[in-house]
């Protein structure tokens, strides 16, 4: 020992001691840190952690530090990943301003951040998961006739008979379904965002949901077979055209009929 201590003033000694200390800390950390078994779920917990960070920065000011919500703001416990993917993925959340309802806009978070947020919220409490591509094969699993029936009973009163959207009370509205992603529509039915009621898997089975989507996609891709569709919103535009254009033309003609020729 004395032999070693004798060299303590040696110029190399500083670096040697530092090196030994660092090695000790390094080994100690690997011994004490989570074992290899946890590495498999590491990616997921990393996403949850990442989501938690985003949540604390971007969402917690309204939804609360533990996503518990308040009297004005809904809790996120039990809403599931599907709800987060719908709200954040379509840009409805975070809210831009406290208007009648959250509107679709350019998403604030990219796909990765949205997934992390969804993973975090899903880790808090159980709720509907984001449907995967295999669950969304509406071309294979849906029936357009059944979808039409379901749509007319369950959806048409708000979203219009051709899915063009429509007005609700006090400035709220049901958005158009034209050009909406399959996953988004599926998640909306599953989670019931904002004014929309929930259509759970046991009142509207997954297969029935795909039928509804197939019907909407059918309407979406339908070409104008019989002249102008006038926005497919029904009697309002049709009446406007008939009264303004049709009557205008008739008035013009009657003025011409009554005018004396020179």
């Amino acid at each position, binding site marked *: 020992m004395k032999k070693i201590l004798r060299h303590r003033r040696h110029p190399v000694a500083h670096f040697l001691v530092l090196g030994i200390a660092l090695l000790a800390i390094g080994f100690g950390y690997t011994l004490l840190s989570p074992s290899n078994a946890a590495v498999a779920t590491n990616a997921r917990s990393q996403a949850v952690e990442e989501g938690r960070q985003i949540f604390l920065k971007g969402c917690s000011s309204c939804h609360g530090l533990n996503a518990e919500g308040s009297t004005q703001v809904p809790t996120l416990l039990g809403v599931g990943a599907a709800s987060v993917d719908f709200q954040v993925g379509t840009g409805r959340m975070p809210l831009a301003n406290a208007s009648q309802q959250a509107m679709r806009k350019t998403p604030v978070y990219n796909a990765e951040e949205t997934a992390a947020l969804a993973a975090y919220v899903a880790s808090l409490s159980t709720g509907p998961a984001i449907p995967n591509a295999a669950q969304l094969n509406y071309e294979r699993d849906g029936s357009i006739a059944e979808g039409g029936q379901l749509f007319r009973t369950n959806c048409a*009163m708000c979203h219009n008979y051709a899915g063009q959207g429509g007005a609700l009370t006090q400035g709220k509205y049901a958005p158009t379904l034209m050009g909406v992603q399959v996953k988004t529509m599926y998640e909306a039915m599953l989670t019931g965002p904002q004014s929309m009621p929930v259509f759970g898997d046991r009142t*509207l089975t997954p297969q029935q949901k795909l039928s509804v989507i197939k019907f909407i996609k059918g309407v979406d891709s339908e070409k104008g077979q019989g002249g102008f569709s006038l926005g497919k919103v029904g009697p309002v535009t049709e009446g406007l055209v008939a009264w303004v254009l049709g009557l205008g033309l008739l008035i013009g003609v009657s003025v011409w009929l009554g005018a004396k020729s020179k």
Partner: protein
Amino acid sequence: MTDTHSAPEHSGHQSSTALSPLADPGLPPHVYRRADTEPSAAKKAERQVAILFGLSAASTIAFIASFVGINKDVFVFIPLFGSTQAQQLALGITLALSLFLIGAGAVHWAKTLMPDHEVIQERHELRSSDEDRQGVIDVFHEGAEAAGLGRRSLIKRTLLGSVGLVTLTPILLLRDLGPLPRKQLETTNWAAGRRLITDPGGIVLKAADLQVGSVAHVLPEMPKGSETTLNDLVKDAVIVVRLRPEDLNLPADRKDWVHEGIIAFSKICSHMGCAVGLYEQQTHHLLCPCHQSTFDVETGAQVIFGPAARPLPQLAITIDSEGYLIAKQGFMEPVGPSFWERSS
């Protein structure tokens, strides 16, 4: 010029003396059109009419050509109007033009070339002369006398009786138009123990199937073999929603008409009978899309806005031993809009 100057003086002079009826002003002087006086203008107008008729004919030929020539799956994009089928568009425009141009040509012809002199139609008195009138009366009396209407009263009475009776026949046939409504307007297929099935979809609902905030459109499950018609559907349609039990604020006698926040109402609007299907999950309002009557689910579908006069009838529900949702009893009042014999 002198005429217009003297006119006010003239009328001023008249008003100071006795009122006299206005003199017949006669017809205004006839203004001749250019086509009346200039042969070249008449020729031009003739050409214009011919062009209009000719264009109409060309348009009709274009109509035939587009019917034959344009393929049905050709679509064109029109700015502001969007994509539309080319053939239908061409048929519509050409047919409208060919009809309109015939009319336009005829009107132009009448206005420029046909005589436009004002003509006064002479009228005479409508009343017939006194001799003619007396003649008709005499003939009538003569006929009645000859037929013996005054003397043969048996014939007169039986004739009146038979004519009177025969007028009853169409009234009797009216009864054959269909069965009487009886109590149909006051009854539905809902009865104690009937299970709730989704329509369309046919899922027999359990209480656990409905999450808070969810909605289902249901009909009563009918016994095997029984027939239901659209008339049944329009009375039986029911909407089921689930909210948190603490959100409900029902009258005391209806507290046990719900099961753990699951509440059911007739979907037929009490105003005009539209399907009240528009449910706002956050406000718990049910909205009729026809006239915007708004019903508050929390207080048992009381009307909070719109023309409806009564709340939606509530269907009392409970669960059976297997957990299926069932009706506790039928509707306690007629569903749908008011009708003449409605008791309440």
